[in-house]
């Protein structure tokens, strides 16, 4: 802000050095405002990424117009392949994967606690998640497997869609954290918790931050339990940026294992725009894309350093993930998808500007 307003003033004759108000200061705010109306950094993260070149899916055809007959024929062929050949195969696989997950975990849950049970539980989970991943035609490349999250730790990743869970669970077993749902999700939740401990919260419990923190702390204190998987953004973002990490997960203590997930948008758009599509139509869109191609990077574990508070720690982890995944590091809250921005941010801007114009005035008065 300072340089731009300073530049504005350089061309304006003034009798006081530094500080002071000039009429052209408004130009700075005006220009910024109009720039943000034309394009802003935040709202674009809540809709699917725009592609530079078309990937033959109608859904990404927002700004492209009719190009040629040949392209239309190829597109038509693509539609046939995706809907008539790939889709039925994928649905079959997904159904198999999910039903075996439910049956398998219920069966394993009948066993008494023992090492065998844990081993079987891991086996069932990984096998079924892998089948589900095939059901989405997911091609995943894992990097730096030596940094894979260990028991008693917290795994933290950027969030793009519920599929992230399947992506990560293909290569390791995690304890999930989340709200209790009804319907199909509820059935899944109740069955997988039989074979190994996950952390499911009732809606009412979620409001009590201390209760939540306590349950998570207890979980990671037990070194035999699987690492917790948390998405600190709290909501799905479109995989072009990483938004503010909520500090709750970083206050619990324990080792944080950051993971960066980056989807390749050429093959399919993995972002779940929950305002536009419900879960079922989203899954259908996933299963009629070309494929889900993604890269997963396991980053070296991090712990909170002395003198660093939870917010700074969260930001540090966020930067590491953004840097690795090639995503834009934003400090805006993902909650802005639904809520209004806090007044305090405006007050910060006002404060910054005030300190500029009050500069020399202040000295005069004293």
């Amino acid at each position, binding site marked *: 802000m300072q340089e731009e307003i300073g530049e504005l003033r350089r061309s304006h004759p003034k009798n006081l050095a530094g500080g*002071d108000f000039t009429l052209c200061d*408004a*130009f700075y705010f*005006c220009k910024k405002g109009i720039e943000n109306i034309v394009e802003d950094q935040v709202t674009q993260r809540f809709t699917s990424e725009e592609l530079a070149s078309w990937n033959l899916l109608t859904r990404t055809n927002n700004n492209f117009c009719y190009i040629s007959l040949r392209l239309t024929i190829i597109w038509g062929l693509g539609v046939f392949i995706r809907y008539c050949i790939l889709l039925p195969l994928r649905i079959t696989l997904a159904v198999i994967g999910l039903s075996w997950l439910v049956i398998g975990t219920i069966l394993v849950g009948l066993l008494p606690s023992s090492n065998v049970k844990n081993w079987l539980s891991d086996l069932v989970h990984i096998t079924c998640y892998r089948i589900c991943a095939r059901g989405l035609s997911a091609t995943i490349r894992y990097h730096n497997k030596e940094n894979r999250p260990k028991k008693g730790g917290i795994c933290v990743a950027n969030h793009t869609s519920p599929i992230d869970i399947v992506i990560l669970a293909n290569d390791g077993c995690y304890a999930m954290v989340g709200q209790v749902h009804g319907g199909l999700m509820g059935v899944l939740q109740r069955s997988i918790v039989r074979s190994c401990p996950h952390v499911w919260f009732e809606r009412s419990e979620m409001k009590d931050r201390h209760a939540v923190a306590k349950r998570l702390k207890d979980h990671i204190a037990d070194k035999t339990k699987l690492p917790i998987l948390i998405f600190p953004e709290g909501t799905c973002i479109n995989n072009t940026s990483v938004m503010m990490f909520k500090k709750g997960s970083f206050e619990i203590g324990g080792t944080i294992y950051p993971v960066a997930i980056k989807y390749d948008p050429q093959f399919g758009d993995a972002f779940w725009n929950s305002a536009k599509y419900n879960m079922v139509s989203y899954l259908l869109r996933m299963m009629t894309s070309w494929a889900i191609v993604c890269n997963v990077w396991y980053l070296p574990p991090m712990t909170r350093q002395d003198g660093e508070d939870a917010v700074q720690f969260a930001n540090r982890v966020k930067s590491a993930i953004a840097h690795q995944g090639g995503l834009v590091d934003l400090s805006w809250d993902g909650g802005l998808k639904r809520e209004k921005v806090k007044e305090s941010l405006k*007050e910060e801007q006002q404060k910054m500007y005030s300190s500029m*114009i009050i500069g020399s005035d202040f000295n005069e008065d004293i």
Partner: protein
Amino acid sequence: MGSRASSLLREEDIEEIKKETGFSHSQITRLYSRFHSLDKGENGALSREDFQRIPELAINPLGDRIINAFFPEGEDQVNFRGFMRTLAHFRPVEDNEKNKDLTSGEPLNSRTNKLHFAFQLYDLDRDDKISRDELLQVLRMMVGVNISDEQLGSIADRTIQEADTNGDMCISFSEFTKVLEKVDVEQKMSIRFLH
């Protein structure tokens, strides 16, 4: 799979907007996509709330004044034509336009019109002069609670003193223009539109 925004904009409309504002075809379609994505109510017009939903604009101290500039006197909705007309003020001035002989009146993005846009940010009641009160109100918007009334008052007085040439304790548009004659308005009040 959802409506394609550009299909709702007719070619005749695009041509008319092109003539009126000077934007290119692709710029207009692109801005229409943006207009459409801001229009959450999908009624072909934007309300003040639609603008407020842009976080970076909501935290801009002059955000409300800028949003206001889009709405004609007394109205609560702005359609795409109005949206483009206002944005046209910020189109960069191309070299071949500076010397063009204009028979259709001044283009929306001329220096005078850009200055007039800025003038209206201050002139709250649109009576073509900036009074001391209006200046104080806008200053208060920009500084929040961080400066006292007296200090703000003296800043306002000083600004009016510098600009006022006819002694009416208000800043008229011509006085405003005179004060800012050395400022590179064409550059400072222009933004880059892609394509």
